[in-house]
Each structure stands twice: as structure tokens, then as C-alpha cells.
């Protein structure tokens, strides 16, 4: 009887069933869509961060910059370079390797201190550097003023035929990587496209692995050599990000000990990557690291995610704020509609319930009937919602919006934009990555949607049932009379 009555009521009162189902469906669909887009944004953020910090990094340790980078100019002596007496000019070339702008190297002892913290399962360190090469021709002394190229100079001079200068500055990012310990860190988020990656046996060797995009723009390949601070490095491999939509963290990777020696930053690193035993331990480990390394900046992945800016960040903010509130609002409205319709239905069916009680139906049976009807309406709404949500997600995925993600953290690890002549003043431009937003559909989201629909149906049913239970049969029949 329960089932028959329920089916007859729902099919006999189609308009009410339809309105509740659509209301609930819209709300549930929006929740699915917001959740899907939110998961997509989280995935995109994770992709961006992974390309910088590698896979498995839970915490990073760096040293906060306390002052602007110092003078990074090139000073040449009067007899330096090769002179062309006929042209009245001197040709100069100089290459240097410095800490990347915005980074502050600190003692490598921090790595062992971090590793000693309870709950830390792996650590790795890098030294972020920038290689800058000056090449050019300047007038010899006596024919034109001496040249001094310093920070903030233009990216190239021009020959004017009257003793002018012509020079260019090329720079690229270099990451000194701990080749003996590569369980975590930037190189875990790359795939080898040619040659090989750095190996533990590369300690002390002048070998280099290049970002494949950088290599292409600089016309470099495996087997060729690259000069860094006057030292030639053999290209042993090319790598690309494991994500098709992100770049690798640096233009190039060399062994850490070689990087330290060449840059003069002996026993120094700029970033330590830490892996925690479990996600639940991250806050405690962060706190312990902050205590152990009081001057260091200890950041979790969640905090690093907040450093991502650009349209991805805007999307994240929209989803987190507008999407969440909109979902809550529509869900609340849908629940309210379901409750009001159920109460209105009970009021309209006063004679019906009074009659059923008069012929012996117990309160519990009447309540069960009302709650059952609401529950089924909720479930129908849930099914409609799943359909709406899936259609919404399919639309998002087919439109595939491109979001740009700019990572402030990239300033500590400059890279990404290929070779080319750049000025000294290039303050390690932030890494901007274009990410295609893809909203995933998960079982948990579907279950959440069904759960919400059932909860809405049960809530409406409970309130409607309570109203029906309160009906006294005599009063119900009297009110009809």
C-alpha cells in the first residue's frame, strides 16, 4: 500500500513533484558543478605547484629576502677584452653566476636540521641561481666614455658609427640540484625527453640538464656545451614538465656542489623541500621546523597555493566565495521550497489524512507516507541534479577555459621563458603558466549530491510528517465539514 499510494501521489501531483525536483535538481546540480570546478582549480594549482616544487613536497623552507639585490653589474679593466684599433673599439665578454634575484641563500646545515625533525621522511635542497652573460663591443678609452653596464641598464646598445657601443646580455636560470637525494624536489616533476636526468654519480661533474623549451629556443641539444660563469657544461639531457600545461621550475639543472662552487655560495642552498610522514602531521612539522629554523620561512603546500595569482587565482577565489555561497543559497532555497510545498501539501490533504486516521491509519503510518513521498521527491531532485551537474561539467570541460597562473614563488626560482637577450634588470619575472581548467567528476561528489538530495527530502518529509502527525482526526474532519 505504501508504494502504491506513494507512486499514485507523486504521479497524480506531477506539478508539485516537478517543481520540487527541479528546485532540488538545480541546487544539487550547482553543488556538483561548483565542486567539480573547485576540484579542477585545486588540480590546476597543484599542477602549477608541482612544476615548481616537484611531486611529494609537503613543506618548503626558504630564507625571506631582507633587502633588494645588490649591484650585479660587470666591471671591466682598461686592458680587458680584445681591441680593434682600426675601429677604435674593444670587444668584451663576461659571464657570471649569482643567486637568483629574490632568493637569499642560507647554510646547508639547515637541511640536516630539517631532516632531524620528527615526522620528516625526506628532504632535498636546491640552490637557485641566475647565469648572466655580457658580450659586446664598446669604444676604446679616449674615443668614447668607458662602459659600465649595471643593474637596470638597457638590454642592448646600438652602433651609431660615432664611437657608440653594441652589447647584449643573456641570462637564464640555473638550479643547483642535490643529485644524491632526488626523492623530492623540482626534478621529480619532470620527464626526460632526451638523454638523461642528473644522477648521483654526477656529483662534481660539469654536466647540465636543460628544460626542453629553453633548449629549443637556445638551439641547444644533448651533447652540446653551455657556458656558465666561464665554465663549459655538457648537456646530458633535456626535460619537460610532467604536466602538459606547465613549464619546469628552471631553465637548467646542474649538480648542487658544482653550483655552489661556481657561484661562490659554498655550502649554501636557497630552498629545502620537505616530505612529511602524513598529511595530518604537516601542521605539527611546520611548527617544529619554524622552531628549529627561526629565521627561515616555512611554507606548506596550502600556503604556497595562496601565492598563485592570475586568472587561476581569480577562479579559485570565485569558486571558494561566490560558488560556495551561491550553492548554499540555492540549496537553502531548494530545501525551503521542498519544505513549503510539503507543508502546503499536508494542509491541502487535511481531509485525506483525517480520513486515513479515521479508518485506522496510525500517526506513524501517515508520517511514513508523507516522509516517503518527500524522500522520493528529493531523490528525483538528486537525479535531476546529477544530470544538470554533469551537463554543466561537460560544458565547462568542452569550453576548457584557459587560466593563467602566476607564481610569486617563481621569484625564488626564476625560469620558464626561454633564452634570449635580456637586461640585467630582469628581476627574474614570475613564472606564468597557462592551465586548461578541467573539472573532474568524482564518486564522492555524486554521493554528496545524492546525500544532499536525500537530506533535503528527509528534512521536508520530517517537517511535513510532523505537521501531519499533529492533525487530530476529529479536528481534521471537522475543519473539512
Amino acid at each position, binding site marked *: *500500500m*505504501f508504494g*502504491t*499510494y506513494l507512486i*499514485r*501521489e507523486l*504521479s*497524480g*501531483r506531477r506539478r508539485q513533484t516537478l517543481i520540487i525536483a527541479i528546485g532540488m535538481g538545480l541546487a544539487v546540480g550547482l553543488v556538483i558543478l561548483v565542486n567539480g570546478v573547485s576540484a579542477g582549480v585545486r588540480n590546476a594549482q597543484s599542477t602549477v605547484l608541482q612544476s615548481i616544487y616537484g611531486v611529494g613536497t609537503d613543506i618548503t623552507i626558504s630564507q625571506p629576502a631582507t633587502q633588494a639585490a645588490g649591484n650585479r653589474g660587470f666591471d671591466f679593466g682598461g686592458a680587458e677584452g680584445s681591441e680593434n684599433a682600426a675601429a677604435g673599439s674593444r670587444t668584451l665578454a663576461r659571464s657570471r653566476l649569482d643567486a637568483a634575484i629574490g632568493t637569499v641563500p642560507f647554510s646547508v646545515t639547515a637541511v640536516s636540521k630539517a631532516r632531524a625533525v620528527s615526522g620528516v621522511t625526506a628532504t632535498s635542497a636546491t640552490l637557485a641561481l641566475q647565469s648572466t652573460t655580457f658580450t659586446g663591443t664598446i669604444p676604446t678609452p679616449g674615443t668614447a666614455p668607458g662602459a659600465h653596464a649595471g643593474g637596470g641598464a638597457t638590454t642592448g646598445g646600438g652602433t651609431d658609427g660615432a664611437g657608440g657601443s653594441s652589447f647584449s646580455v643573456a641570462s637564464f636560470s640555473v638550479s643547483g640540484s642535490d643529485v644524491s637525494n632526488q626523492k623530492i624536489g623540482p626534478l621529480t616533476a619532470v620527464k626526460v625527453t632526451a638523454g638523461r636526468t642528473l644522477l648521483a654519480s654526477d656529483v662534481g661533474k660539469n654536466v647540465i640538464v636543460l628544460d626542453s623549451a629553453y633548449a629549443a629556443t637556445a638551439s641547444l641539444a644533448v651533447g652540446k656545451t653551455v657556458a656558465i660563469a666561464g665554465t663549459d657544461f655538457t648537456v646530458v639531457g633535456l626535460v619537460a614538465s610532467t604536466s602538459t600545461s606547465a613549464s619546469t621550475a628552471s631553465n637548467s639543472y646542474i649538480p648542487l656542489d658544482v653550483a655552489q662552487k661556481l657561484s661562490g655560495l659554498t655550502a649554501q642552498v636557497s630552498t629545502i623541500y620537505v616530505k612529511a610522514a602524513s598529511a595530518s602531521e604537516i601542521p605539527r612539522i611546520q611548527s617544529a621546523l619554524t622552531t628549529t629554523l627561526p629565521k627561515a620561512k616555512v611554507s606548506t603546500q596550502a600556503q604556497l597555493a595562496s601565492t598563485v595569482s592570475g586568472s587561476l587565482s581569480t577562479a579559485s577565489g570565485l569558486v571558494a566565495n561566490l560558488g560556495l555561497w551561491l550553492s548554499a543559497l540555492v540549496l537553502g532555497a531548494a530545501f525551503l521550497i521542498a519544505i513549503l510545498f510539503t507543508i502546503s501539501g499536508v494542509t491541502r490533504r487535511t*481531509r*485525506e489524512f*483525517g*480520513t*486515513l*486516521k*479515521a*479508518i*485506522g*491509519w*496510525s*500517526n506513524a*503510518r501517515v508520517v511514513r507516507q508523507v516522509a516517503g513521498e518527500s524522500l522520493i521527491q528529493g531523490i528525483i531532485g538528486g537525479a535531476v541534479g546529477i544530470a544538470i551537474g554533469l551537463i554543466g561539467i561537460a560544458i565547462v570541460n568542452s569550453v576548457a577555459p584557459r587560466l593563467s597562473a602566476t607564481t610569486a614563488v617563481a621569484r625564488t626560482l626564476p625560469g620558464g621563458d626561454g633564452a634570449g637577450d635580456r637586461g640585467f634588470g630582469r628581476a627574474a619575472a614570475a613564472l606564468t603558466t597557462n592551465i586548461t581548467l578541467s573539472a573532474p567528476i568524482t564518486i564522492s561528489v555524486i554521493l554528496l549530491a545524492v546525500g544532499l538530495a536525500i537530506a533535503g527530502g528527509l528534512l521536508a518529509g520530517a517537517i511535513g510528517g510532523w505537521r501531519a502527525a499533529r492533525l*487530530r*482526526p*476529529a479536528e481534521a*474532519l*471537522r475543519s*473539512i*465539514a
Partner: protein
Amino acid sequence: MYQLTGVTKTYQSRRKTVVALSDVDLSIREGELVVVQGPTGGGKSTLLQMLGALDRPTDGTVLLGDRSLGTLGDGRLASIRATEIGFVFQGFNLIPTLTARENVEAGLAPLKISSAERRRRATEALESVGLADRATHLPAELSGGQQQRVAIARALVKEPTVVLADEPTGNLDEKTRDEIIDLLEGLWRERGLTLVIVTHDSAIAKRAQRRLQIEDGVLSEAV
């Protein structure tokens, strides 16, 4: 069967106390056909609700057999209504979304019987009121007389000992009225029911063994 002693029922309506029944004493024997007459608002329906375990008296006692209906809980009263009392209403009170047979089955829903048995008994009850061929029709597809027959089948399907009819012909034309009264009277004779009918209609009252008059909540035997 029924023994009412000093039954009073009052309602609060807009700060006014309405006395629906005043110190009513009544005894109804098993198998009696009793007609209750009186003006609108006189207390007829309230009396029927007391007999039908739908309401409790403000004062006095209502005994059905040896059970005092005023002191029983809601669940026990619902159980008595489910097994022992059949109701027939003036407005038929059928569930509009259920077919004739399903409406009759609704009378058996509180009883612990299988759906097949419920269906069989509902079909038999419809046959007994001459509506076997309308079993799958919705109330809206039936005439007033047919709807009242379905309501009578619903009241009788549980094989009650008492049937209480509140103006059962109030919404019917004269010809249909006679058919329904004939049906009720026939079933009463055939099944040995106790039948209490509330009506305005003197033609019906004349066919009863016993007539009661109620006015301003005061009950009296009609001569």
C-alpha cells in the same frame, strides 16, 4: 456495545466555549440500527466522533464493550478504528489519486495481511456493493453514488462490528439516496452490524429501529 455516561464535549472557539455535547447518556446494543437526527451544529457529528474513537470527551465516559475510549492512547484508538469501526462520510472522502480498489485496500493497510489477500478482500468488498467492474477507476471517474459505494466497501472490508455513517446520502440525489440506504440496510441485516446513521433526512429516519434527536448538545430519544 456502547455505553455513554455523562458525556460532555466542549470546544474553545474564538474565546468562546462551545458545548457540543452536554451530559449525554446513551446505550446502544450490538446489532442495532440507530438514526441520529438534529439541526446543523446540534452535536450529531461530535457524537459520532465519540462513538468512532476519533475524539475524547471533556467529561464523562464512552465505553465500547469494556474499554473506556476516553482513557486509551492514540495508538490504541487507531487500532480500534482499524479493526472494529467503519466510517462512511457525507463527502465520501476517497483518496483522489487511488483507484476504487486501492481506496478499499487503504482500509486494510493497518492490518497485517499480505498484499494479495488485501487485493482479494478489496475486490470482494467492491463486488458486494456492485462495483466490481469499476475497480480500476479513479474517484473522479465515478458518480457520487458510486463513490459512496466505494466508501461503504472501504468501511466494510475490514469486517467491523460497528459502522458509523455521517450524512451518507447528504450529497446524493433522491434515487441514489434510496439505493445507498437500501445497500446499508441490506448489509446491516446480512452482517449483523451495529449501524449508526447521522442524517437530516426523515425518510431515512423512518426506516430505523431507533431514532435519537440531538439539539444544542442534548440527546433525547425521538418518539
